[in-house]
């Protein structure tokens, strides 16, 4: 603690910076504060009381912060537990939805859903992919340069 300057907490360094050394009248070490060795200097006593008050405030702040921290940790743990539960449920649902979508997609591909029989025993593809698509279906992959010798010919007919 530096008289006439900014109070410094005992136990947290306590020494004034070097540039204040000349301005200091006296430096109070932590152990001397406890005993209040400045009873003959009223202004020093007041400073000591202010310091004590400040210390007690900081202590309660610390206690409060600790309690709040614990509360936050508890809440966070609760959140994590809840999130884990949700993740598991979403995963199960996701697998179900994805599986269903895959089955639907597979069955809607041209010719995959071959089921019924047309007239005269002629097979008919029941898939609606040729008839119900509301727009042109672009290719899954654009054509690329062919290199094989086994080939077919696409031309006018």
């Amino acid at each position, binding site marked *: 603690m530096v008289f006439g300057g900014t109070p410094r907490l005992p136990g947290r360094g306590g020494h004034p910076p070097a540039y204040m050394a000349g301005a200091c009248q006296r430096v109070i070490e932590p152990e001397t504060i406890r005993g209040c060795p400045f009873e003959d200097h009223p202004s020093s006593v007041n400073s000591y009381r202010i310091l004590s008050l400040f210390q007690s405030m900081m202590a309660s702040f610390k206690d409060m912060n600790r309690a709040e921290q614990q509360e936050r940790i508890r809440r966070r743990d609760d959140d994590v537990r809840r999130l884990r539960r949700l993740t598991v449920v979403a995963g199960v649902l996701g697998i179900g939805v994805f599986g269903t979508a895959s089955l639907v997609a597979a069955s809607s591909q041209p010719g995959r859903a071959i089921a*019924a029989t047309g007239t005269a025993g002629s097979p008919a593809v029941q898939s609606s992919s040729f008839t119900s698509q509301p727009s*042109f279906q*672009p*290719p899954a992959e*654009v054509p690329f340069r062919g*290199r094989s010798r086994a080939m077919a010919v*696409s031309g*006018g007919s």
Partner: protein
Amino acid sequence: MEIATAEFGALGTNARVMVLDAQALPDALDAVRRQLQAIDAACSRFRPDSELSRVNEAGGQTVAISPLLTQALEVALRASRLTDGIVDPTIGDALLRLGYSSDFASLARHGAALPWAVYTSPGWQMIDLDAGAGTVRIPPGARLDLGATAKAFAADLAAARAYAAAGQGVLVSLGGDIAVAGAAPLEGWTIRITDDCRSAFDAPGQTIAIRSGGVATSSTTVRRWMRGGATLHHILDPATGLPAPEHWRTVSVAAGSCTDANIASTAAIVLGDRAPAWLAERRLPARLVGVDELVLCVAGWPVEVRPESHWRPSADPLSLQLASSIDALEEPHPGRRGRFPAELLESDALGSGELAR
């Protein structure tokens, strides 16, 4: 693994089946044959005993049809919806008027000039299809032609069936309409793109590969015939009932299915110079070869390297002249694309005459 291949004639063209495993080829072939027979019995315009012929001859009556023809009609109607009527199954009567009255193999390539009138097809909206009940009704006098969709639809169905039967990846080509199903070879299914599906593998064109979906090519250089000195081709503009003006000689499209690819390639021929933007907007990779032999690739179609050109344009001034004169006369009509105004249809300016002299 060696790819096994077999070819046979079907649907008035050649069918080619390729399977990843040679042992699976018989099963795949059998499945494809049965599917094509079923399609032919349901959708052929040239077989008097086909279901489609029965519908065309019904004189406006409701006809009960099989699930297969129901599906084929649904595909045709979807094609019309997707193309705003550029691909229209009600052009059957227009094809008849232009002399395309029998299977192309038996069609006389030359003939007398045809009396003709500018003809607008009844329109796909006039088809009353009840898919649930399995019935269809078309206006009296209207005739359906499923040539723009049925073959590609058949390729898709046949590929799916062959894959189901063989358990191996397959490619089915019906006159150049190609569908694949199942696993593809490591290097993909290799396809030579040319003007004519009967061409040899080294014919001028481009070699590409796909792993899924389908590829289709429409061309004005095949299925051509002459009437009175005018050269005609089989891709009609429903707005005029006449062969589409020849802006592109060949258009090839890749899509999620052979059916979609063929709908788009046919529409592109009719759309002319609007085709590249139309295809790109729909994210359909395509290769368009102009009558001037310029090649245009859109939407990711691989750009080809052409060291030299083998193709020589066949001078066909009459058809080009016919096309350009029709183009000049076309006038957008409210509600339908490219219709002729009613006053022109009723007058002698276009109402009668001969195609060309």
